[in-house]
């Protein structure tokens, strides 16, 4: 298969502008006759549905949630990047582009990333106009902070709830279009199949989650904005209901899954505490602006802490290893996520972990309390502040910045992070892989588009912090509204798509059969049990580090688990009613196939890059050892039950020189 990325001609910085100025348009009278299905109403989907509605298309938007406002974009904490250079610290579109390419370990497409950096500026303008209450300075202008992997402050934020505020902005815009009738909203509808008719994506099959009824929905094209698949690991920072099903069903209809093994393990999450645990909770990367990561220098101290004989306070400054500051002096605690996570794994591997399981490190705010406390005292005109005053003022400043995160930590851990350092460990957070798309965000199936975390396009092998919100909104507000016209301009003579087409009934029957097959197993094991076991295999063999032997073993284990799933699954209730257990089973069935594809992908890529760390390929210092000669390509997988088939898109770097990534 020839994977043409359709990158426009011209100089890098001119491509998008020129392309936009010359691409096909759809006239208003024709927009009114064209229908678009948008699946998923997180940042990318809500932004796309609202904007396409504003443009005059007839949009049908779908979410499995009870309301678009529940999408997991809402949980993004720290912020959103934009090359505004409001801080006058040397930021520019090119620098954001370069940081993103480098942060992604040179495994993303130059043209897509440059476009992302360009439109990042419009996103902030749009969000402010919608009423998103970003943090501001006393002068009334917008405030910024820093995130990992960069040396400028370009992250806009709304306390620790940036995703919530941006999603509500998009949700409100979507609500406005719903009220005008340009968008028809289908809540509690889960997409269970894609309908491809005469080679083009023309609709979807959904299950009404309240009644169990399977429904056919048709349109001239289909946009998937259905998020990432981190829940294949069972434990992740994703919401419980996040899943791969919509994207994976598209793969079964011919779309390709690109770079599935690129998984982001986020370094600062609350460590696991028990078997019953259902999810892991993120502590925003923004905390690394002010928190310092450390473990005890010697193994005996770490053991004493694990056993409760010592606490962090008992370890003298000289006996602490601030290992990120030591290993990466140029970026310190703000190295990218993949680098920080691996360093934590190494420290814990040396026996220096500080939680009972051995898998945890400290994130310490003591120096931030002191630094802010002194500065605040100075501002108040107190020139000889007492230690108590410094602590009081310092903690107040930190509370104003991260109060909700500190509260959340205390709620979950039952200990006060203002008094004792946080205990953190890496956890699965984001998936850089996703459906393969070209520059138009169109998959290899004509008329099927993928946006946001559901596509693979912009983050390469590792995403920088505060870039997920940026990409979701860029795709939804500023890219798809233009590029969808490239496809739809060829459809202006196409009549309304009818659900009576044979492809709709075929897909509906396939879906019904698939569900019946699951319901009829009537075995003895719950979906939850299978999901948990799948997650353990994924984490063990395809997690923070991988090797060929483990990947082969893991793949076989998943295949065995899949066999067991189809012979011993038990789902209570029936398919014709509200049945959350059935919903879960459909998701896990797809995770089992995706998980295997991830193993195959990770095994194919004989190099280490970004979030993909192969133990066989590392430098003497334990850093990722990339192989540009053989692996500068996008892996796009076609599903096949025996052996997924690999298609390649070679990545061409015309503006950036491939270098060994260094944060030292």
């Amino acid at each position, binding site marked *: 298969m020839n994977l043409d990325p359709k990158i426009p001609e011209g100089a890098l910085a001119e491509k998008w502008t020129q392309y936009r100025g010359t691409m096909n348009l759809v006239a208003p009278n024709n927009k009114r006759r064209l229908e678009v299905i948008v699946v998923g109403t997180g940042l990318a989907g809500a*932004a796309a549905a609202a*904007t396409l509605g*504003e443009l005059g298309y007839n949009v049908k938007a779908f979410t499995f*949630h*009870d*309301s*678009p*406002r*529940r*999408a*997991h974009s*809402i*949980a993004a904490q720290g912020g959103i990047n934009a090359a*505004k250079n409001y801080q006058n610290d040397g930021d520019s579109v090119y620098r954001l582009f370069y940081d993103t390419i480098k942060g992604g370990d040179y495994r993303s497409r130059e043209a897509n990333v440059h476009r992302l950096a360009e439109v990042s500026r419009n996103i902030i*303008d*749009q*969000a*402010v*106009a*919608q*009423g998103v*209450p970003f*943090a*501001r300075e*006393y002068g*009334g*202008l*917008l405030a910024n902070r820093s995130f990992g992997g960069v040396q400028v402050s370009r992250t806009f934020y*709304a306390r620790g*709830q940036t*995703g*919530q*505020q941006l999603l509500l902005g998009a949700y*409100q*815009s979507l*609500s406005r279009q719903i009220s005008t009738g340009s968008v028809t909203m289908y*809540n509690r509808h889960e997409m269970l199949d894609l309908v491809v008719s005469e080679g083009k994506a023309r609709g979807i099959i959904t299950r009404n989650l309240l009644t169990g009824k399977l429904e056919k929905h048709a349109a001239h094209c289909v946009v998937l904005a259905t998020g990432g698949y981190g829940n294949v690991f069972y434990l992740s920072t994703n*919401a*419980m209901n996040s899943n791969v099903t919509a994207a994976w069903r598209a793969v079964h209809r011919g779309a390709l899954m690109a770079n599935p093994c690129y998984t982001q393990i986020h370094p600062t999450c609350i460590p696991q*505490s*028990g078997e*019953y*645990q*259902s*999810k892991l*909770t*993120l502590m925003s990367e923004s905390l690394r602006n002010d928190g310092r990561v450390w473990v005890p220098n010697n193994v005996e101290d770490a053991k004493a802490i694990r056993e*409760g004989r010592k606490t962090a306070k008992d370890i003298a400054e000289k006996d602490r290893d601030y290992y990120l500051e030591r290993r990466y002096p140029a970026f310190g605690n703000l190295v990218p996520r993949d680098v920080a996570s691996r360093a934590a794994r190494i420290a814990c591997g040396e026996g220096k972990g500080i939680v009972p399981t051995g898998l945890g490190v400290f994130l310490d705010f003591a120096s931030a309390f002191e630094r802010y406390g002194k500065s605040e005292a100075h501002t108040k005109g107190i020139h000889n502040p007492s230690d108590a005053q410094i602590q009081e003022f310092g903690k107040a400043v930190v509370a104003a910045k991260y109060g909700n995160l500190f*509260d*959340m930590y205390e*709620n*979950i851990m*039952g200990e006060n992070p203002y008094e004792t350092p946080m205990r953190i460990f890496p956890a699965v957070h984001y998936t850089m892989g996703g459906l393969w798309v070209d520059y138009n965000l169109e998959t290899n199936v004509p008329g099927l588009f993928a946006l946001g975390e559901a596509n693979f396009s912009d983050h390469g092998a590792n995403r920088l912090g505060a870039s997920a919100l940026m990409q979701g909104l860029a795709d939804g507000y*500023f890219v798809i509204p233009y590029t969808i016209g490239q496809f739809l301009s060829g459809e202006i003579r196409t009549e309304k798509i009818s659900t009576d087409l044979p492809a709709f009934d075929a897909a509906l029957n396939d879906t019904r059969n698939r569900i019946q097959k699951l319901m009829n197993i009537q075995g*003895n094991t*719950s979906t*939850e049990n299978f999901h948990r076991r799948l997650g353990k295999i994924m984490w063990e063999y395809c997690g923070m580090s991988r090797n060929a032997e483990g990947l082969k073993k893991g793949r076989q284990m998943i295949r065995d688990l899949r066999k067991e799933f189809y012979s011993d699954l038990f789902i209570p209730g029936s398919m014709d009613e*509200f049945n*959350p*257990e059935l919903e879960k089973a459909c998701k896990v069935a797809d995770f089992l196939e995706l998980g295997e594809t991830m193993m195959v992908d990770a095994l194919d890529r004989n190099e280490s890059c970004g979030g993909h760390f192969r133990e066989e390929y590392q430098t003497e210092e334990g850093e990722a050892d990339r192989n540009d000669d053989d692996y500068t390509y996008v892996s796009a997988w076609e599903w096949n039950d025996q052996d997924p088939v690999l298609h390649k898109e070679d990545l061409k770097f015309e503006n950036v020189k491939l270098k060994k990534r260094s944060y030292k």
Partner: protein
Amino acid sequence: MSANNMRLTLRIWRQKSNGHAGKFEVYNDVEANEHMSFLEMMDVLNEKLVSQKKEPVAFAHDCREGICGTCNMVINGKPHGPKGGTTTCQLHMRTFNDGDVITVEPWRATAFPVIKDLVVDRSSFDKIIQAGGYISVNTGQAQDANAIPIEKDTSSEAFDSATCIGCGACVAACPNGSAMLFTAAKVNHLAMLPQGKVENSRRVRAMVNQMDEEGFGMCSNTGACEVECPKEISITNIAKLNRMYMGAVLGKQDTVA
């Protein structure tokens, strides 16, 4: 992290659908430990029920980080349970004691019909937002983000209202089943900002009318909503809304305090 185990008795509201009558079922000897979240305790109960081939308890949940607003249990008579400023998913079992009897019910309000067990339909909230809970700006129409300075405290106050997660605890807590706190929080969030002030009068009228149409009750200032709000949204939002509503229906210009 030594785990103190506990044994609990749960009284849980079971209801097949809105058309069926519901009743409390009692589950004895439910095991938990103090590190579990309340929902993880429910997960363990459900796994046990499924292993006995019984129907698990349906409950709404998603992010389990206290931000998506999906989870909604009335625990021992209080929306989101006994701990203030907390959603059900962020409530941990260390709040309870070994041997406790815990009663779990869905939100109860006319405008939130029960779907199954503890799951209710809150689409009436979406309708209120659709009536006017937005700023009418199309994508691409915005000027530079720093073109209008907004005073830090004003912006911060707008944020305090915007932090609403749309869970509906305010309605569940209200003896009248009123959605005034939810509606007022959105109105104030937008009214505080220069961008949103422009269409405030229209917005206030439309949202309040829609709230009435959805079957929410009248506000009688009991203050229960503020007490149970997991995001601690202030009841002063309601006072401000009332003032703006009066101004709007009397045909005056926007009276934003």
